[in-house]
């Protein structure tokens, strides 16, 4: 079966997507990392962080994935750019029903802080 990943994290940029032949049981974090895409899995895929946050492009495909449990939802709550069809990549396993699944990698930015607006210029004496 096939899954497609839009690797480009910038907003509003359609860009290319990569298609991968995958097998049942492969999870999206492992698929992305095996193919050298820019997806972190800081906790090693154990649902203890939000760095593998992905966005499912098709709402119907999103519904075909078993619902996230409290643990996953708790981690998703911390993810930047959370959407209605967000999941943790490490928790989404490919099944025949998900053949053709297309996902996007969200923009990866830190939390905004006051210092983001009008920062101090670096020193040039």
């Amino acid at each position: 079966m096939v899954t497609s990943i839009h690797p480009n994290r910038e907003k509003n940029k359609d860009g290319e997507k990569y298609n991968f032949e995958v097998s049942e049981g492969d999870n999206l974090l492992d698929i992305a990392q095996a193919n050298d895409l820019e997806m972190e899995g800081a906790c090693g895929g154990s649902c203890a962080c939000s760095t593998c946050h992905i966005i499912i492009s098709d709402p119907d495909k999103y519904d075909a994935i078993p619902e996230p449990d409290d643990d996953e939802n708790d981690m998703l709550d911390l993810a930047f750019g959370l959407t209605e069809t967000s999941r943790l990549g490490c928790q989404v396993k490919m099944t025949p029903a998900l053949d053709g699944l297309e996902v996007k990698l969200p923009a990866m930015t830190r939390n905004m802080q006051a210092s983001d607006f009008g920062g101090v210029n670096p020193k040039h004496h």
Partner: protein
Amino acid sequence: MAPEKLCSAACHHAFNTTRTAEISIALRSFSTATARREQEQSHSTTEHNAPGPAPRVAIIGSGPAGFYAARKLMREVHGTKIDMYERLPTPYGLVRYGVAPDHPEVKNCQDEFNQVAQSPDYTFVGNVELGRDLPLPILAKHYHAIVFSYGASKDKEIGLEGEDKPHIYSARAFVGWYNGLPEYRNLKPDLQAGESAIVVGQGNVAMDVARILLSSVEALQKTDLTSYAIETLKTSRVKHVHVVGRRGPMQAAFTIKEVRELIHLPGVNFSPIPHHLFPPNSKSLERPKRRLMELLQKGKPHDPQATKSWSLDFLLAPTHLDWEPNDPNTLRGVTFTRTALSDPSSPSSPVSNTPETTTIPTSTLLRSIGYKAEAIPGMDRLGATFDARAGTLQHDGTGRILMLDTPAPAHASPHAHAQGDAALYCAGWVKRGPTGVIANTMTDAFQTAEAIISDWKRASLNSASTLHHPKRGWPGVKTQAAAEGHRLEKVVSWDGWHRIDEKEKRAGAMKGKPREKYGRVEDMVEAAAAGGGGHVH
């Protein structure tokens, strides 16, 4: 040296699995990793720089900020040489000394850090404290860039009279104590003084402290929580923990995973939160806050068999400590002023005091109102300014403190920053303040690394740039330190850390735990020595 891990796939995709899915992933990952490695090894020049000396970077601090910055630099500018300075003999920063022992999966990022450390371009310089063992300005001439990523080594005080007396602890110290931080090996918290403890502050550190105080010792004994702390917890009389906050549920700093875990702790009751403290229309809140309010409002059914309990006590600001009349060193209670929120539904609502006060009886107080970074002596000579009020280094917003090739100031003293000296950067808590989880620090470290890489691209186009001059890094630092009379005898290398690591794991295996941490620096140093012994206690 430990065998290098080539494949970036999780190790549970073992080759003895019969699942073709996992084998195919593992094989693809393996071939990608070997192809990348071959590419790296065949390049003596880099994509970004003209042929020339490899950039040399000193990273101060070996926690997530330092390691993620190092990883990005080494991946994107092939040949970058990193020397990572760490004041302890052991690496990983708060991943080792902050993350709770019952949250081992959070420490998995160490696997990534280990992969960085395997590179021949990476050198770990452990047990060297800059500003104390080694003057910081010595680094200036031996690197193209210095990155400050040493986090926050102090905590904020409430400012109460008597806060330095017995039975008052910093949560940071308590966490360090049970996690084996040598600085707090002898904290000896008195958990027998009474049945109640108050934690002031409602962030995730407060959650960890409450959970460790209330969890069954049987469960904790199988973790890497230090044995000396287990012994103390075994005799603890603490039965109720008040986790007290100055503001309300919508403003508290804890995150939902940690609260859920505490609420569902077996054998521990959770006091219901008064309904009027919640926003009236929680269904219209954004998802993270909505789920959190729902969780807090739902609480947990009271268990008459439970012997322990905890509560979230909101809208209370501590004003003074009450001591036993007969013994000024025995805590009797804490008096609070009731506070009021201007806008209870807003996460950033201002809060003010009311005339009302209340006293909560307790024998033990832990303050958990935030960590605080401090400057390294000699920073100003290098050209960095530490903002003591903010607790952060001054930078341009992305982590740049001082650019490469910056001329020396006019009328400068001989020891001030010179034109060919290292550029300065910062990453992590010392850059943004001491908040956020590992994922936030990781993203921040990537941002600093991107700034460095972009600066190098520009510098490489300038034929006069210092970037084209080779720098000696740690060997140069050692030579200059010796010449100036500084003795650096017990530097711990990555191999030395590996020896400490192996001994800790073996000592832990005998007790059915992942590791038994060394609690003293001298024992770590002894264990790090080749052929060294070292008793774990």
